[in-house]
């Protein structure tokens, strides 16, 4: 946009981890009153750049200038006090505290040192309202699904930056993949807020793998590849194809391929049949049928119960009513083991708390499910194990391609791939994917979608949940529509089914 002084300038940033050079000499500038996208594949170094900026990681080289002054933050607290407000990639809030507290902690309204709970709740409710959220701010954060938590994190960073006397208000707002679990509505709401802040002069750093979102809201972008700077461009000067080529260093045209495929509708016999499956306080009893080789997509708004449905099918939560038959045999759903034994796999949306074991290596995380199914007495022979792991690291392009790397140190997208590999390796009959593309870059996303298609062609059934309706629509043979934690419709995919048709179904909530 304009050519005034940048509010933030990072030059020659270097960050090394043992064995990995995550950033090598990256330059980055951010101007007041702009929304600036930081782009790059999984593992390109986006989150690392942000963490170096806010003092989570120490700097190995380079300088940071904020408002013309050279700075170096020792902790996120210092960064925050200097006016940099951040939402990190994984939801980083305290699940045991209430929503209101999560928003305000560290700068609660006080009088004479005494926290004013009433006022805090009221203000929190107002802030949450601004994002169009309707939740009870006094309830503990853990009682809400991931998407709501993500919104709360956003509210925390945008809404309260200007309190706490210490700082001069938020100058820089950093959002690292804030939209990965959000619905269209929430995203729009967020964008409205971002624009408003931008107009107030706040500089916003935005990371997302959704290119549409970038083009919708950003003014300028910086592209990283493998920890190096590729370039800085005005969004209007660079089209999507150009951007992708910059990001991955080569051209890309797989998207069309997918479209050709999806009309196939020859699915096999019934694999899974759920009758009256439900859980009080969770999801209303529903009937569901998934055929062999079928991709069943679930559509619904945030909190409509897609995850809950998937968890019930997997036995992650215990149903109060109903029964499930898989391949003609009734399966008791008392624990995930039963479902796994019957050939069901469940890739959770919440990879941090329900997916990975951060201290273990990539290899160990990948073979975990298979090993658990075999029991502890029958370890997978080393050669077979290494072969399998190597195969999936290659197939999913997990980076670094080192099976001995600790999973907790991988970039978000690569962690997601490890999780996928874990379940693919078990060769399930029904694969439940709850937002498998969350935080995954555009290239890998198409890869995963292609994978789903080929798996279903090979006869695997897939239950597919994604925040993006288009994604669901593109892949599914059938679409289950949820509303208010009730399965309201089941649509067979075809040319007449469009996103707006699905949204209509959700809105009317009518049965087919």
């Amino acid at each position: 946009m304009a050519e005034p002084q940048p509010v933030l300038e990072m030059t020659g940033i270097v960050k090394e981890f043992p064995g990995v050079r995550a950033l090598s000499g990256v330059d980055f500038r951010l101007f007041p009153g702009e929304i600036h996208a930081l782009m790059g594949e999984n593992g390109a170094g986006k989150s690392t750049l942000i963490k170096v900026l806010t003092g989570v990681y120490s700097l190995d080289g380079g300088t940071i200038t904020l408002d013309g002054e050279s700075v170096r933050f020792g902790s996120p607290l210092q960064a925050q006090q200097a006016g940099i407000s951040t939402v990190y990639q994984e939801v980083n809030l305290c699940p045991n505290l209430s929503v209101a507290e999560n928003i305000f902690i560290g700068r609660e309204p006080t009088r004479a040192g005494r926290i004013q709970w009433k006022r805090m709740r009221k203000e929190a409710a107002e802030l949450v309202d601004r994002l169009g959220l309707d939740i009870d701010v006094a309830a503990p954060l853990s009682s809400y699904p991931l998407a709501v938590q993500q919104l709360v994190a956003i509210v925390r960073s945008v809404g309260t930056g200007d309190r706490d006397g210490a700082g001069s208000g938020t100058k820089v707002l950093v959002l690292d993949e804030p939209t990965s679990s959000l619905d269209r509505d929430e995203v729009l709401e967020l964008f409205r807020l971002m624009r408003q802040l931008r107009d107030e002069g706040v500089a916003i750093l935005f990371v997302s793998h959704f290119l549409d979102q970038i083009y919708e809201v950003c003014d300028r972008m910086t592209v990283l590849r493998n920890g190096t700077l590729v370039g800085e461009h005005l969004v209007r000067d660079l089209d999507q194809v150009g951007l992708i080529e910059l990001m991955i260093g080569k051209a890309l045209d797989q998207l069309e391929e997918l479209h050709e495929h999806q009309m196939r509708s020859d699915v096999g016999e019934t694999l899974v049949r759920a009758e009256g499956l439900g859980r009080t306080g969770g999801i209303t009893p529903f009937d569901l049928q998934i055929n062999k080789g079928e991709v069943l997509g679930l559509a619904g708004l945030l909190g409509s119960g897609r995850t809950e449905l998937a968890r019930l099918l997997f036995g992650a939560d215990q149903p109060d009513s109903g029964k499930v038959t898989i391949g003609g045999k009734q399966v008791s759903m008392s624990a995930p083991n039963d479902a796994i034994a019957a050939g069901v796999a469940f890739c959770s949306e919440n990879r941090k708390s329900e997916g990975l074991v951060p201290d273990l290596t990539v290899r160990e995380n990948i073979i975990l499910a298979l090993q658990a199914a075999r029991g502890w007495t029958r370890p997978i022979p080393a050669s077979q194990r290494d072969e399998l792991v190597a195969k999936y690291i290659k197939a999913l392009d997990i980076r670094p391609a080192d099976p001995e790397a600790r999973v907790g140190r991988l970039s978000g997208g690569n962690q997601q791939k490890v999780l996928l590999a874990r379940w693919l390796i078990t060769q399930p009959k029904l694969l439940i994917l709850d937002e498998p593309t969350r935080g995954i870059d555009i290239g890998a996303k198409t890869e995963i979608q292609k994978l789903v298609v080929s798996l279903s062609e090979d006869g695997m059934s897939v239950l597919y949940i994604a925040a993006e309706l288009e994604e669901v629509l593109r892949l599914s043979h059938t679409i289950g529509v949820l509303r208010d934690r009730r399965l309201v419709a089941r649509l067979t995919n075809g040319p007449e089914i469009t996103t707006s048709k699905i949204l209509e179904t959700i809105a009317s909530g009518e049965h087919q």
Partner: protein
Amino acid sequence: MTTTSRWRALTHHHLFWPVAVLIALLLVNVPFTPDFFSINMTDGHLYGSLVSIVLFGSPLILVAVGMTLVIATGGIDLSVGAVVAITGALTCSYISDQTDQNTLSAVFLAMGVGLVAAVVCGLWNGFLVARMGIQPIIATLIIMVAGRGVAQLITDGQIITVNSEPYKLIGGGYWLTLPFSIFVVAAVVAVTVALTRRTALGLLVESVGGNAEASRLVGIRSTRIKIMVYMFCALCAGIAGLMISSNTSAADGNNAGLWIELDAILAVVIGGTSLLGGRFSIGGTVVGALVIQTLTTTIYTIGVPTQTNLVFKAAVVIVVCLLQSPKFRAKVFGAKGPKGPRRDAAPVEPAPAPDAAPKMEVSR
């Protein structure tokens, strides 16, 4: 170039600091006991300080090895001391009831009885922790308190003395000129390593300790694994109990294994296993236990006045822990270290702690 990189690799090995401390402690003894490292033949067996360190340290090693697995699942077992006492009491009271205490079958039966009791204690702990979801410290506190009472009930509050040559062998006897307990320890350690690294048990234990909820969702039967681990820990404590009572040929319900749980936990941590659960190292634990036993012996030999024993112990524990802390090393030696800048990366990074994991365990 290669020597420095080899040195770096060495200092980065997880056993480097525990072993270094162990060696340092052993060396401290030399000025006070000039023939500290000498080992000679006495009465057909080896005799010397090193031998007695291993001999007296055996029970601690055993208990600590069992404790390692419990800690790896994110738990803790305070009841091991009481289990030591119960096993010793039961076994000795059974043996002392025999007319001929030297019959092998009776001794084996007695040991069997003792070990079964130990395993039952472990089962109970495991049940409380894994099935009932009670926090491990409290669940095991119950047997820690009541167990010692049970041991005294068995011995009637007296010290039961046995005169059984075969029984004496386990904890106080010699075989092939070496203390027999060395063989027992070696066997238990070998079995543990085999059990955890040759099978998938180690992986599953680390997974349960690293992230309990994720483990549940991949279909690991964590209840079963936890119960097993507590039983194994109690079994180790039971064997240690046999050893302790056999060593003095007497069962002392009140004092046997008193506070051994703290030393065992200390050994586990010195060995590099985190109390939060997850990764564990049996080798580290063995070294850790040896460090503690050497420390005890050192206190006895260098003539520390009794009232300063504990201060001395505290000082050593602090030094050991500081040396093991990468952050401390970075601060103190960092500037002079061979390659300074590479170092500080790791510490500043907030350990991707398995934060969700332990919480799940207790709230479930």
